[in-house]
Each structure stands twice: as structure tokens, then as C-alpha cells.
């Protein structure tokens, strides 16, 4: 019995960790640095830089959107004009020139009707990123929507999913094929004027994924979107909407990369999740946007609004994120726990190396009775990286029996980095139980020496210790993503010691 357990555990671990034990794999991982940094040479149809009502209309027209969608965008745009960028985050950001950005870029040519029509360069791009789209090599058990700059280039397994009544397509497609659903849910979790970047997104959003899981259906495979920024001087403004009807469940994954460029590119996404009665949505992100170089030149500005609403009783939303990329990350995936007995979770690993800055965390808003939330945040800072956890736990008056547990751990590597924790707690119901634990630690010399005295080299020792630190969060990720996440941390920490 016991030995079988070792074996199982060890085999599981082999899958999780195979790369760390194979010499070549480690070498490859360590030498690859940011290997998603290439540019695909494909002609694109882009709007000139600049933003005004005409731009908004032009985007809408390029996408052949119905009138109501155009109006929705314009309303958001007009609201955005009245707003100012937020300054409360612990981030040092130069002013962003919104007129210098191109708000739409798409590979030239007619829209692809099926994956067979997608040009070879694009298929190859995704192959290189480890996301095969073509029929023979499709990822088993994972349906992928591939978004390239402002448009979705294709979605796999659509037929198989449709057989179950599941809709998984690009947002642009959904606006046309399922307008009633889009109208019913879009902007109901993150309103157009929610915040500066959400308003901007609502005005100019390009593409993203739309997921609808009908009543009682458990989605039979992982759904995933792979976002790729390719063109220079463009922003990516994706919009994702996931709806799980009564008793439905789905696990959704998101990955992102961009070429290395010495300009800062803007990524301002909005993600909305709606879980009705007894529904469950698991949303996992491995974010690896280009982080900039070691001197802080270039990199993606990642300003993202992600929010899920547990609208029905007993519904559940789980956010898991591994944030290793971007020059700046501003992101607080949140849960509005409206339904009684609903539950929200947030599991996060955020790593900042070199000059990266992250201000990330979550908001758990308890409205319904007996609502529960759990927050596990692991921040890792190396080099001159600055890592901030910012989290709000709010218990409304009617949230009888609400409970929250927050665990917030920071790990520092080296002497020039920083970790900061800002937990905000607002409790309006005296019966609620809110717990907060926080630790800050360093990779100790003792730990390093212990590993090295057993034969493990410095870089491997660091990634092993960091991996151990993140274990609780990695456990929440689907297997393939856990492998990817571990590799990413290894690569991102390259040069953090010595």
C-alpha cells in the first residue's frame, strides 16, 4: 500500500517535474529565456494610431457588428473620456500616450471560415508557442481559441462542444451568432464605467472568448484561449465572457505571450464570469507577456479587470493565476458572492524579476448568506522586482455566516527587491469570520547550502525552493499548465542568484 503510494506520488511528480531532472531539458529551459519573443512575419491590417469616436466606430465596422454593439462601445468611450487613470496602485508608470497606440490589428485577408483556411505562418506561430491548432496535433482534451492581436484566428473542437449545447467561440462571433446571450450578460459583472481600463476596453475591445455552458452540462474538456500580441505599437484589448447556467461547470485556461520589443505595449482586458445556481467556473491563467529586459526597457503593461459573479446559490468560482510576465501587472480577479452558500477562491503566484512590477490580488465581496472565500497569494520578488499584494475582503450586512481565509506569503530573492502587502478588510456583519495570515521570507543561505551539499546546483536549488513555495497554488492548475508554470518560473528566475 504504502509503497504504491510513493510510486503514484512519484509518478505524478515525474509528470510535473520531468523537465527538472532531465539535464537537457533544464539546459533548454534555462537558455531559452523569453523564447516566445519572436515576431511572426505576416501582413496586417491595422488602424492608424489614435483614439476618438471614429476609431471606435471603425473597430465596430471592421468586425461587422450590429448597431447595438456599436452604441454600447460608444457609451463606454464617452464615459472613459470623463475618467482619469488610477494612481492608487504601488506602481511606477510613465504616462501612457493613448493616442500613440493602434487599437486594431489583424492579419490581412478575409476572415477564416475554418481552421483549414488559417495561413501557415499563423499555425506555425502557435505551434512554436506549444499550442497546435491543426487537426492532427490538437491538444488532447483541450479546446483552444487562438487570438492573434485583435482577432481570433480559430477555435478547435467547436463541433464536439456544440453537440452538448456548449458555445465556445470568439467574442466577435458570439456578437453575431448569440446576440441575445451577449446582450443579456455583457457588462453585467464589469459595467462599462467600472474603472478607467475597463471603460477603455469596453470601447475598443477587439477579441476574446465567449463561453456558454447550458443548464446541467459539465464541459467535457478544458477550454482555453491563447492570446498573442504580434504587431508593434498596438494594444490588445480582449474581452472574455463565460456563463455557466444552473448546475453547469467548466474549466477555462488562458495563456499569453508577446514578442520582445523595446516599447511598452498595452494590454487591457476584461473578463466576466457568471455562475448561476450550483454552477462552477474554474478560471486559470498563466500570464507570460514579455516582461521587458533586465534594465526595464520594453515589456507589456498589463491592466486587467477580471471579475466573476456567483449569481446563484451554491455556485463557485475559482481563479488561479501564475503571473510571470509583463513589465507592469495591475490585476485583481474578484468574486462577487451574491448567491447564498456560494464560494470564491483566488490562488495566485506572482513573480517579479529585474525591473518588473506587480500590484495584484483579489476582491471577495460577500453578499449572500454563508458565503465562503479563500485567498492564497504567493509573491516572489527577485532582482529589483516590486511585488504588491492588494486584497479586499468585504462582508456586507446581510452576509450572515460569511467566512474568509486569506494567506499571503512573500518570498524575497536578493536584497534589492521588495514585497508589500495591503489587505483591506471591511466587515459589516458581526457574525462573519475573517482570518488573515501573512509571511515574508527569504530563500535562506541554510536552504541553499543544504540543497547544494546534496549535489543540487544553485539555479536548480532556487527553482526547487520557489516551486515548493508555490506548491499550494500549482496544485490548483490543470496538469499541463502546472508543468508550464513551473518551467516559466525557472526561466523567469534565471540569473536571480549569484
Amino acid at each position, binding site marked *: 500500500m504504502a509503497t504504491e503510494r510513493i510510486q503514484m506520488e512519484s509518478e505524478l511528480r515525474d509528470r510535473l*517535474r520531468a523537465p527538472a531532472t532531465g539535464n537537457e531539458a533544464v539546459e533548454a529551459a534555462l537558455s531559452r529565456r523569453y523564447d516566445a519573443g519572436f515576431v511572426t512575419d505576416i501582413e496586417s491590417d491595422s488602424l492608424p494610431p489614435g483614439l476618438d469616436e471614429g476609431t471606435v466606430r471603425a473597430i465596430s465596422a471592421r468586425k461587422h457588428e450590429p448597431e447595438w454593439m456599436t452604441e454600447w462601445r460608444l457609451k463606454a468611450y464617452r464615459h472613459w473620456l470623463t475618467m482619469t487613470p488610477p494612481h492608487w496602485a504601488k506602481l511606477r508608470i510613465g504616462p501612457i500616450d493613448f493616442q500613440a497606440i493602434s487599437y486594431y490589428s489583424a492579419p490581412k485577408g478575409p476572415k477564416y471560415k475554418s481552421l483549414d483556411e488559417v495561413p501557415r505562418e499563423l499555425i506555425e506561430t502557435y505551434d512554436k508557442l506549444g499550442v497546435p491548432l491543426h487537426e492532427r496535433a490538437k491538444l488532447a482534451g483541450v479546446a483552444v481559441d487562438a487570438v492573434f492581436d485583435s482577432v481570433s484566428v480559430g477555435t478547435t473542437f467547436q463541433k464536439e462542444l456544440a453537440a452538448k449545447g456548449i458555445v465556445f467561440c470568439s467574442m466577435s462571433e458570439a456578437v453575431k451568432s448569440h446576440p441575445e446571450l451577449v446582450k443579456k450578460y455583457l457588462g453585467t459583472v464589469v459595467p462599462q464605467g467600472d474603472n478607467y481600463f475597463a471603460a477603455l476596453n469596453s470601447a475598443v475591445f477587439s477579441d476574446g472568448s465567449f463561453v456558454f455552458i447550458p443548464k446541467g452540462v459539465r464541459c467535457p474538456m478544458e477550454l482555453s484561449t491563447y492570446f498573442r500580441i504580434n504587431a508593434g505599437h498596438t494594444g490588445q484589448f480582449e474581452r472574455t465572457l463565460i456563463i455557466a447556467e444552473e448546475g453547469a461547470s467548466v474549466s477555462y485556461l488562458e495563456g499569453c505571450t508577446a514578442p520582445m520589443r523595446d516599447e511598452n505595449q498595452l494590454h487591457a482586458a476584461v473578463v466576466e464570469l457568471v455562475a448561476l445556481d450550483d454552477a462552477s467556473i474554474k478560471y486559470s491563467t498563466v500570464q507570460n507577456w514579455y516582461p521587458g529586459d533586465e534594465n526595464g526597457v520594453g515589456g507589456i503593461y498589463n491592466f486587467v479587470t477580471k471579475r466573476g459573479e456567483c449569481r446563484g446559490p451554491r455556485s463557485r468560482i475559482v481563479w488561479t493565476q501564475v503571473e510571470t510576465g509583463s513589465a507592469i501587472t495591475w490585476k485583481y480577479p474578484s468574486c462577487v458572492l451574491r448567491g447564498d452558500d456560494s464560494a470564491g477562491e483566488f490562488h495566485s503566484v506572482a513573480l517579479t524579476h529585474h525591473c518588473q512590477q506587480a500590484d495584484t490580488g483579489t476582491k471577495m465581496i460577500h453578499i449572500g448568506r454563508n458565503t465562503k472565500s479563500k485567498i492564497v497569494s504567493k509573491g516572489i520578488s527577485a532582482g529589483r522586482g516590486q511585488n504588491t499584494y492588494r486584497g479586499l475582503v468585504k462582508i456586507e450586512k446581510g452576509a450572515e455566516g460569511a467566512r474568509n481565509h486569506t494567506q499571503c506569503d512573500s518570498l524575497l530573492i536578493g536584497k534589492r527587491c521588495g514585497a508589500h502587502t495591503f489587505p483591506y478588510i471591511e466587515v459589516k456583519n458581526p457574525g462573519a469570520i475573517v482570518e488573515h495570515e501573512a509571511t515574508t521570507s527569504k530563500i535562506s543561505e541554510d536552504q541553499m547550502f543544504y540543497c547544494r551539499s546534496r549535489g543540487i546546483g544553485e539555479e536548480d536549488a532556487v527553482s526547487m525552493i520557489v516551486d515548493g513555495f508555490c506548491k499550494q497554488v500549482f496544485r490548483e492548475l490543470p496538469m499541463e499548465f502546472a508543468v508550464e508554470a513551473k518551467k516559466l518560473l525557472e526561466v523567469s528566475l534565471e540569473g536571480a542568484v549569484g
Partner: protein
Amino acid sequence: MLKIDNLHVRVAGREILKGLSLEAKAGEVHAIMGPNGAGKSTLGNVLAGREGYEVTAGTVEFEGQNLLELAPEERAAAGVFLAFQYPVEIPGVNNTYFLRAALNAQRRQRGEAELDSMQFLKKVREKLAVLHLKDELLHRAVNEGFSGGEKKRNEIFQLALLEPKLAILDETDSGLDIDAMKLVADGVNAMRDPARSFLVITHYQRLLDYIVPDVVHVLAEGRIVESGDRTLAHELEAHGYGWVAGRHAPAGAA
């Protein structure tokens, strides 16, 4: 196997080892005893390559090569193993995984083939049986939440698995109950081999009833002040370290 000659070591600006010499041949077990603060752990750390220990004079030869110029992981691969006086916790890192990573890292450095998970588990089972250890500790994170005794036994398990040429045990008996101490001693005895040497640092002659040493050294004030056979340990037990000091006026004072 190991030849230490006139070793001087500074730690945090203070000279701790002051001309230590010691030679251990393959297959020998050397016990090192000595008062608190004498420099026993310092010796272990220097041999294993810990940073911050500055060698100001002297040489250490291990199997004919200069040990002092190797990085800690290279020393491990060359066959040096230190069982820590205070084993370190590594939260979240599975013990089995850690051991396999360590073993394979060493094998890689030696140009040997790595063990796959089946081969590794076979080895783990063998060693567990020899040491009469339960496998439950293997499923936990490295030393995390282990009791003092469990940590020490885990060190011996690592020793058994890594099969070094030179094993330095730094007070592995401290904090063990009598049964656990016997188990540890059995484990060490099972590993005695004509090709393997041990430096056993201990405060208690009792351990040496179980692990019978070839040579006993007394380390005081940074050097070996007395060496003898196992009866020396009995004398120390009976008379204390003052007895040694009385017999040998410290050379440094002369």
C-alpha cells in the same frame, strides 16, 4: 581518502580552526569529540563547502584532489556528505522528489546515467528496509514539521541513498532516544565499507559503543589535541575535557 593539513579557518572575522590536521583512510571511522564551540561543526561545514568559511591556511585533500577548490555540489558529487547538526526545512518540496533530484544531480555530474522513477523507488525501498524506516516521512516536505529525531533519521536515510565516500555525521545522535540512536547506529554500521570513511562528531561515548570507531580525536580550541583508540572516549566520559587540557598545555599558548 581525506587528508587535512594545518587547516586555519576564519568565520565572521574570527579564527575558529587553528591548525587542524587529520587523516582518515578508506574504510576508517573517526570519532571527533570536543567541547561546545570547539569548531566541530565548523570543520564539517568547511569540508562540505559552506560559504562564509574562509580558509586562511592549510590544505584539504580528498582522494588526491584539492577539496577546497570545489563548489558544494561538486564536493557532493565527488562523494562528500554532511549529515547536518540542524537539518534544514524546505517547505513544499517533497522529500522523495528532493532525494531523487539530489541523487540524479550527483550522477549527472559524475557522468553516470540518471535513475528513472522505477529504479529510484527500488533503491528507496531497499534503503528503507536496511534502516528499518517507515516511508511516511518520504511523502512530506523536506524536514518540514519533522521532530528533531525524525530530522536526524532523515539525514541518515539521505546518507544511505546517496552512498557517499566520506560521510560526516554532525551530532546525529543528539536528540535521539535510545532506540532511535540504535537504529541510526545500525544504519551507519550497515554502510561501513572498506571504501567508505566516516567522521562521526558526537558528545557521547554511548554512540561509540554502537558505532565502533577506529580512531577517536579530541578537538579543542580549533585543533586536534589528542587522538587515540576507542578507550580515549571512555576516558573523556570519565574525566571530561578538562582532563585533556591538563595533559596537553595548548600549543597556541606556548
